[in-house]
């Protein structure tokens, strides 16, 4: 029999809190990362702080992984109630291999799945094996790791090494018990073989070449790399880990962290630190972002650099704190009273969060403006393998400080050709000025004169215009003359990318534009991209289709450009984007059939 191996495997697991499902996922992704695979792991929890249901999805591939994947190849259910609570997050299809704890009392032909008949259904006495091997139910996750290693060929040695390392603190006994459970899981797979085409192909990339982290930690590390010396913030899901990591790391680099009494004080302290000359960051989400809005306006009018990371979650108000959404785009771009504009950036992967965060600091410093990074819960919390990043390629920008000569007759808000004025800081002799939220003249003195207000507004808005030419902040793939297009952003961009590549493999000519800078909107870059386009889809995770609407404010978008927009917590799958592209192609062909031919002599 010919052995077909898989290059891509999506595993989904669910259980109750305490079952260790998420730590099983952590062990798996660590193991595959060490082996040189590409992988993404997402975690999802019920609303409870402790206990309750928890799940994770792991996508392992020999190639770059673009998104957490769609329908599961392997589903592991420790109990069905918990599994089903995750609904569309853990979709089971006709090709899924379902493994479940036989103790749930569900017959293999009576799975509580509506309208789906999985390819293979395997009840395993997971709890029983754990108790027999390790004398505890708590080793169930080690049994699952053994099953996955045995049936799918996922790096047993690496998993074991990971278990040893993780459990080192708990003593040899605990590790040995888990090792026995793991071995028992493997043994079970030897006794109950399934078809060989389930096994992963060996990794292509070198062992030990990968880094492994999530978007929040990546942003924290990138901030330090960019020279961030101050963090002020307030705990809020799903952004808190940025503060956690910085509370451990920022001091090592001479920086200071202040856990503020509220969101406003967090960004207030950041404004103060930046006014005093230090690069500063705050991180927040949802309601926190709303609270910070007034001070963002202050930073705009007082021309104070800062970076505000918004790890988006479901809204409005408390919304769905633990789930991803892209519905803060309007807020990032438009919130705040007055003629207020600020650059908005968004990373598309965990690795990308490095460059985007460094860029956010650079832009904030160069243009003396607050910059918002729109990450989201998906990128913020998902663990992802990261290929080595050559940090020497990234330059670090510092704000333009006044020269000795400029300090002799210093004018803080001097109107220059670029709109950018040298910025002094306390401690600098001759640089003394008044920063203010009140409108001010070039020297910083308060004013209510319309003419000065107009001039200062013009200065503050005009200085951001060069950002519209930052082609490096727009990712484009596909043939330039394609008639079909996808536009997507943030974590959902990876789904659009996969859909486009699947479409291309079917011969559908489609291209993709991913703006990593959402504001200011570059009319020119969009217009150029859309020149060949008759139809397409803007793919995003917000109910209103916020990017679709935002682009249309600035750009002449072809009427055939539709919106594929879903509220958060409803995964957008590559396959559905592909189906929309197929449908668009059909209607394009129908349309063309009706039109008289234009070309030719």
């Amino acid at each position, binding site marked *: 029999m010919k052995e077909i191996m898989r290059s891509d495997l999506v595993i989904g697991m669910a259980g109750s809190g305490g079952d260790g499902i998420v730590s099983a996922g952590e062990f798996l992704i660590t193991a595959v990362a060490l082996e040189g695979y590409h992988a993404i792991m997402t975690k999802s929890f019920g609303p409870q702080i402790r206990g309750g249901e928890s799940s994770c999805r792991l996508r392992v591939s020999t190639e770059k992984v673009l998104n957490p994947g769609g329908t599961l190849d392997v589903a592991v259910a420790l109990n069905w109630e918990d599994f089903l609570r995750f609904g569309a997050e853990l979709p089971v299809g006709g090709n899924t291999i379902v493994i479940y704890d036989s103790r749930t009392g569900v017959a293999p032909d009576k799975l509580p799945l509506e309208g789906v008949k999985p390819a293979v259904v395997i009840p395993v006495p997971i709890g029983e094996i754990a108790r027999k091997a390790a004398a505890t139910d708590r080793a169930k996750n080690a049994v699952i790791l053994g099953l996955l290693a045995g049936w799918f060929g996922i790096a047993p040695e690496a998993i074991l090494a990971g278990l040893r390392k993780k459990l080192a603190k708990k003593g040899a006994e605990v590790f040995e018990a888990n090792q026995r459970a793991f071995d028992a899981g493997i043994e079970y797979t030897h006794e109950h073989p399934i078809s060989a085409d389930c096994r992963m192909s060996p990794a292509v990339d070198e062992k030990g070449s990968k880094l492994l982290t999530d978007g929040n*930690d990546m942003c924290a590390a990138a901030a330090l790399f960019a020279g961030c*010396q*101050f963090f002020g913030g307030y705990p809020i899901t799903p952004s808190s880990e940025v503060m956690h990591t910085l509370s451990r*790391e920022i*001091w090592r680099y001479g920086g200071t962290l202040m856990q503020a*009494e509220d969101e*406003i004080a967090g960004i207030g302290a950041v404004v*103060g630190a930046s006014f*005093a000359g230090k690069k500063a960051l705050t991180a927040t989400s949802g309601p926190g972002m709303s609270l910070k809005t007034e001070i963002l306006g202050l930073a705009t009018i007082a021309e104070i650099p800062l970076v505000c990371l918004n790890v988006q979650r479901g809204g409005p108000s408390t919304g769905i704190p633990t789930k991803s959404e892209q519905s803060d785009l309007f807020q990032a771009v438009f919130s705040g009273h007055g003629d207020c504009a600020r650059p908005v950036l968004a990373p598309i992967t965990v690795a990308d969060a490095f460059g985007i965060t460094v860029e956010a600091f650079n832009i904030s410093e160069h243009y003396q403006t607050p910059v918002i990074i729109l990450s989201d819960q998906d990128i913020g919390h998902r663990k992802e393998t990261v290929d080595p990043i050559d940090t020497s390629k990234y330059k670090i920008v510092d704000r333009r400080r006044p020269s000795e000569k400029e300090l002799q007759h210093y004018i803080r808000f001097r109107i220059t050709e670029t709109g950018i004025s040298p910025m002094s800081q306390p401690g600098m002799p001759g640089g*003394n000025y008044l920063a203010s939220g009140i409108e001010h003249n070039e020297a910083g003195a308060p004013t209510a004169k319309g003419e000065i207000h107009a001039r200062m507004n013009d200065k503050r808005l005009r200085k951001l215009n060069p950002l519209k030419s930052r082609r490096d902040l727009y990712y484009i793939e596909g043939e330039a003359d394609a008639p079909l297009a996808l536009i997507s952003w943030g974590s959902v961009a990876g789904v659009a990318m996969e859909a486009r590549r699947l479409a291309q493999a079917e011969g559908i000519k489609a291209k993709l534009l991913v703006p990593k800078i959402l504001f200011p909107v570059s009319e020119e870059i969009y217009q150029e991209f859309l020149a060949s386009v008759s139809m397409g889809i803007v793919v995003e995770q917000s109910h209103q289709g916020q990017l679709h609407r935002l682009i249309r404010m600035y750009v002449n978008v072809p009427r055939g450009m539709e919106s594929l927009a879903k509220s958060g917590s409803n995964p957008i799958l590559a396959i559905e984007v592909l189906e929309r592209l197929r449908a668009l192609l059909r209607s394009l062909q129908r349309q063309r059939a009706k039109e008289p031919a234009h070309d030719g002599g």
Partner: protein
Amino acid sequence: MSTALVAKDYKSELKPIWCPGCGDYGVVSAIYRALARIGRAPHDIAFVSGIGCSSRIPGYTTAYGFNSVHGRALPIAQGIKLANPDLLVLVAGGDGDGFSIGGGHVAHAIRRNIDLTYIVMDNQIYGLTKGQLSPTSKRGLKTVSSAFGSMEAPVNPLLYVLSYGAGYVAQGTPADMDALANIIEEAIRFPGFAFVNVQSPCVTYGEADTQIKAHKETMESLEKLGHNPADWLKATDLAQDYGNKLYTGVFYQNPNPAPTFEAAAKERHHALRGTGFPKENILEMFRP
């Protein structure tokens, strides 16, 4: 050789927008005098305020000023001091800024004990918005926003900050400029968070019993009363007369000032500096 700094070196060219006779003129003068005695160069001083008549004050000095948004002077000032602990950082504003819209920040600035001097110009009224109730307005006060009289008890700023744990708490009035300049100077010299409440009359919307003339008649010096500023319990006792009696001078000065946040940060920097990955290799922290 540089000559010694004098009060007018701290006075800017900006002409105050305050009404003639406003108590805040006295406060800013007392600040000039205190700063001259301390002698730090204006460029080493950051002076932060929120919004309100009194919050215009940083612009009337030659220091680096920050006239920010309503109620948020304290968070901004803390960020400044933590970013550069060598600076002398002053914070000022009105009673509305400090005890209404920004009231939530006071307790935390105090428990963090960052070395700031916070001067509140307390006039029991909202002057900038033309005469509404303030958090320190007396019960029963009729204003444009309380046509039939206030139904709320006023806050007691002195008792608040004492109970929050402020290391230095004093009160003054422009009716006694020497004493006011003295306590501001002392507050600045105090190593830690220092609070100065200034009864600063609003000549346009304030009641007669809040004016300079009334202050001169009723004020009582704590020093002359024989109050020992190290006695915190007695200070809280005296502070309860806020609104009835005008005590001036130092209510409380901690004889053993607590360590400041920035001192602890400095120790941590010292202990941890160089223990991280070199910046160019910072991503090594993600090695699985």
